């Protein structure tokens, strides 16, 4: 029983990061209408910036987080200005190719500048752990989860309680309609894309604490984020939360209970995406 609860807890903790990465992606897909295949690279940038601040200036990643978030928000907004903006009306395929190109560019820039090694960040709470009755939680995991929750809370507050958030949701639901009621769609796009990248970077900071920073660290998170937003349904910003929990928990369950679990957990995960998509497609309104 304890093992089961511990597994659930581990899954839940993991889902915090998933939700951050996926909410960011959901903004760029849902609001801007761009499937950003470079999303994982913005996470990678966040992880490296956190590592750099920690390694060279001795600043704890959690302290550098706001600065990193802002910086990457700026990079994202700039990216929107110089590239994304020009393919908004282009075929979906061209948009995909553009962001693929961006991903390749960023990933290999990191590889060229920093090499392929993984960089770990050391923090004072690295080896600490938290005891909750019979359950144990690693210190970094607990801290990362707390941060993820706080950030998600802020994000959803912004989305549902502020003018900008309402505008973003309006655009996500009905582009033309939003334009007609006088929303500056271009500006909303730029901000949404910036926030999207910023969220990925924030997740990257947390990943640098939990795992490491490396040029390719973003890929697997980006893939999972795609799966999550697809399961939630494109443009469904709240659906992202439960889909993240579902994914994190089922991954943890497979790791604990399936023999040779680590290797198979990816298969289960991708099978879930595949099954969800296919089943949903055959349940249409006919």
């Amino acid at each position: 029983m304890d093992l089961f609860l511990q597994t659930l807890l581990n899954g839940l903790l993991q889902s915090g990061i998933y939700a951050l990465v996926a909410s960011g992606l959901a903004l760029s897909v849902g609001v801007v209408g761009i499937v950003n295949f470079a999303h994982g690279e913005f996470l990678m940038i966040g992880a490296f910036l956190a590592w750099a601040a920690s390694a060279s200036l001795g600043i704890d990643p959690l302290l550098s987080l706001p600065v990193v978030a802002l910086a990457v928000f700026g990079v994202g907004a700039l990216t929107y200005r110089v590239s994304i903006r020009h393919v908004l009306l282009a075929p979906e395929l061209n948009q995909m190719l553009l962001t693929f190109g961006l991903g390749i560019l960023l990933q290999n820039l990191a590889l060229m500048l920093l090499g392929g090694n993984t960089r770990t960040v050391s923090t004072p709470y690295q080896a600490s752990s938290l005891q909750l009755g019979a359950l144990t939680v690693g210190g970094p995991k607990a801290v990362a989860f707390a941060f993820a929750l706080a950030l998600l809370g802020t994000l959803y507050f912004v989305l549902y309680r502020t003018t900008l958030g309402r505008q973003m949701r309006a655009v996500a639901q009905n582009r033309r309609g939003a334009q007609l009621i006088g929303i500056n769609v271009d500006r909303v796009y730029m901000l949404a894309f910036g926030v999207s990248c910023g969220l990925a970077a924030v997740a990257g900071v947390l990943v640098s604490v939990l795992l490491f920073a490396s040029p390719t660290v973003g890929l697997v998170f980006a893939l999972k984020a795609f799966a999550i937003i697809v399961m939630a349904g494109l443009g469904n910003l709240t659906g992202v939360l439960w889909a993240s929990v579902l994914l994190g928990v089922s991954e943890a369950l497979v790791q604990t209970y399936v023999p040779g679990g680590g290797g198979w957990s990816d298969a289960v995960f991708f099978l879930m995406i595949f099954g969800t998509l296919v089943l949903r497609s055959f349940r249409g309104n006919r």
Partner: protein
Amino acid sequence: MSAVSARPVPARRPTFAWRALLALGIFFVLALAFPFLPLGDRREFLLQIGFFTLVAGIMALSWDLLARSGQVSLAHAAFYGLGAYGYALLLKAGVPWGAAMPLAALTAGFVSLLLGGVTMRLSGMYFAIATLAFTEVVRTVIQNLPESVAGGANGLLVPALLGGNSRGQYLLALALLLLTVGVSLAVRLSKLHHAFAAIRQGEETARVLGVNVVRYKLAAFFLSSVLAALAGVLYAGKTFFISPLDTFSLANSISPLTTSIFGGLYTTLGPILGATVLRVAEELLHNTVKNGYLVVYGLVLMLSILWLPRGIVGLWRRGRQGGDL
């Protein structure tokens, strides 16, 4: 409508078609002459680049074939991998290579029918993600099967194609590219072309007009996957060694896509030109800017989308998209 009129139907601007055929002809003549040129002491290396350019051409053109029916797939690595693994395992089981090659391709073709059958109702990004997930499932399964079955994460050794004769391997790849081009042109000139284009540009409208969407989507899947699997066989026979991570890598699904878009979508010439230009550019960059070559490669892709949205072929094919050879 009932009586067949004697009046000739005006033929539609054939000019580009001839130019495209001419360009294809020139490409094949040059490609055929290449291994017989005095290539000096870098011969092996150049033949290898040539070989993988041809493989990239097969991958891109076969991907384009599927995309023409509106199915933007990220499962090409799966068919490539199924070809490579099918070939390796058949050889291991004692099947002669000449039979193992088509059998591996047909296996991939069969799997593609299953995949196409269940993804039939998905479109756009949902379809792309489902096919990506499918690829990952296949990879993980192969990776986690006992090593005695398919080599597990460590991979498999594969006997060299044609005893390792580089020129022979190159010519075999060229023959298979020619086959792919033949299929592509045959599709272009047949009923399939109209069915694919109609489904891509309006699936429901196509059905209302009597297009059997299920049949044609599956046909596109089958043709495309068989050809991609042949590319996988070539790869396996050239590199001697295949592993799940390399063979089923996401890059193998993405580069056919980028290559086709870069060269010109829904054409026969475009994907081949794209493969040639990108491969050669990659090698040149590799030699000049060393590690940074992928940085430049990424930048080139971005700039080409921003400034050359219809690919290379679009440069002299103004006007419409999608109709020409």
